[in-house]
């Protein structure tokens, strides 16, 4: 290919492409489309930040972070995020306790034990589970699972008709496909040579799974769990339908109803709150808090995924 211009002096330089305005225009159009996602992020940050700043002009950050009451819609107004934050953490913790064993167990089975045919049969189950709308999970939790939980409850005081426990359990199942699919990716990416080496040293299947594959895939597994936590934190409909909308004081008993941050936003956002009232601004202040939490978790997860991809791919 080289340099034909050297032998034929008059020939145009082949190495430099002809200018094609159409091609250049197309590239610009494509780049504009790609910028929409940047604009979305900018829009999200702007629509959260501006009202949040207005909110903090009225309410001190100290009160927001330390007051133990959240009663912006009551006559006696208090603006402490703690009741919402603690409810969110309780529901998320319950869902993580459910999702980690089931999600990682499923992933380990699919990656290490299932035959190719089994995998082809079982993976769609997780995909369907991931495709079910969260209102449907909420419906199932509220009308089917919670009555069962109440009737089986051993103690004297039964769980409320809406409560954090049932919301957390169902949210855990909802998160299972997220955790399982990312964790399975990480486990499948572990090279076969590591497994064969362990088998050659007379390891059993379980030893290979737990002592070779699991540690080797750890960064991906942690990423899966972190992403699962982020999903649970941001889940709205299950928290609203099954967990309830009660806000005011800190509730630590998971069998009682309490509003998570997402449920508060959904609850306050349905009403016709007057724009620029302090009540309306609370939606954005709580939204910013939620955004910061999920943003940090997502960033950790993205970094960890990149790490395991770098190691084995």
């Amino acid at each position: 290919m080289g340099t034909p211009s050297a032998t034929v002096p008059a020939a145009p330089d082949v190495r430099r492409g002809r200018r094609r305005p159409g091609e250049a225009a197309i590239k610009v159009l494509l780049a504009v489309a790609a910028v929409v996602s940047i604009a979305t992020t900018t829009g999200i940050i702007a629509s959260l930040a501006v009202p949040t700043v207005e909110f903090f002009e009225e309410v001190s950050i100290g009160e927001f972070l330390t007051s133990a009451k959240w009663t912006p819609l009551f006559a006696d107004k208090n603006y402490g995020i703690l009741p919402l934050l603690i409810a969110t953490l309780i529901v998320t913790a319950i869902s993580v306790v459910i999702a980690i064993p089931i999600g990682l167990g499923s992933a380990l089975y699919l990656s290490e034990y299932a035959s190719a045919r089994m995998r082809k049969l079982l993976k769609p189950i997780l995909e369907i589970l991931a495709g079910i709308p969260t209102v449907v999970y909420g419906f199932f939790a509220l009308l089917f699972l919670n009555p069962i939980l109440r009737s089986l409850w051993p103690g004297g005081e039964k769980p409320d008709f809406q409560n954090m426990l049932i919301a957390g359990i169902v949210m855990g199942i909802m998160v299972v496909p997220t955790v399982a699919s990312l964790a399975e990716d990480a486990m499948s990416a572990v090279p076969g040579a590591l497994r064969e080496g362990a088998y050659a040293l007379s390891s059993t299947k379980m030893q290979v799974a737990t002592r070779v594959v699991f540690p080797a895939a750890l960064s991906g597994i942690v990423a899966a769990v972190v992403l699962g936590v982020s999903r649970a934190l941001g889940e709205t409909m299950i928290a609203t339908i099954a967990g309830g909308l009660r806000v005011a004081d800190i509730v630590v008993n998971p069998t009682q109803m309490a509003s998570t941050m997402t449920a508060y936003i959904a609850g306050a956002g349905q009403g016709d709150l007057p724009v620029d009232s302090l009540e309306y601004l609370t939606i954005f202040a709580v939204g910013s808090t939620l955004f910061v939490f999920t943003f940090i978790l997502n960033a950790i997860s993205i970094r960890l995924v990149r790490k395991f991809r770098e190691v084995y791919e």
Partner: protein
Amino acid sequence: MTTVNTVIPAGKTVSLARRRRRPGEVAFKLALQLCLVIALAFLVGLISYAVFKGWNRLDARLWNNMPTGIVSRADRAGVQSAIFGTLWVMALVALICLPIGILSAIYLEEYADNTRWYNRILELNIQNLAGVPSIIFGILGLGMIARVIGLGFGVITGAIVLALLVLPTVIIASREALRAVPGSIRQASYALGATKWQTTWRQVLPAATPGIATGAILSLSRAIGEAAPLILLGAVTYIRFNPDGLTSRYTTLPIQIYNLLKEPQAEFQELAAAAIVLLLVILLAMNSIAIIVRNRFHKKW
């Protein structure tokens, strides 16, 4: 390996052919299987409960009648406006999201030089956006699109918000489909004198279409199942008419289900269950199409 024991006189043999029993191993495998069984049982339980609970309401009333919150009319209530609203939203989301998503994917996969900082930021931004909770997109719609831009609380605002919500999914799926097209196809096209865009438009994009279509259908099905952002966008009322324009008031199936679940009466709960069955049927149909497209048109290179 299996015939080692024939050399040793019978009676004293340790059969190597038969594995040693390891109860721990068996228990571990069963525990792992149990994890999948729980997920499966949940899925089966959820679907059968919805069908069972909604059985009496799975008739023409569901799609012929309009929603109502009035208890005495509960047996005549349906969800027609929600079905039409869902169809409107689905069509608009497809119109907005698919061109932007697919063009973005082409840019990132075919054109962008990913050593440049701005392209890397673009990529990171999409990954991050995929993890933003859906209710936050509702806040974007409420604060920015409905109020600041001034589109109001019509079906177009809801559709834009849902389109932006599933945009990262469309981009990521389309990029995977484009990446699966082997470089040799591109090289061959260039060798015949095609330009970059001719190569992309006539060779790469057609080859990637099944993958892109699968991703697009799955993203649309996620959009129509989503309720949280629309709660903030004025869809939570009993709308007794079908949308008739871009700024028309609307409601969708998931929102109507949520609405009905707020009512304590059993009639409304049954109607909610029937609406859930309808929504699941629509989603199942879309997913089946996606699977058929993937299996039938998928090319192994």
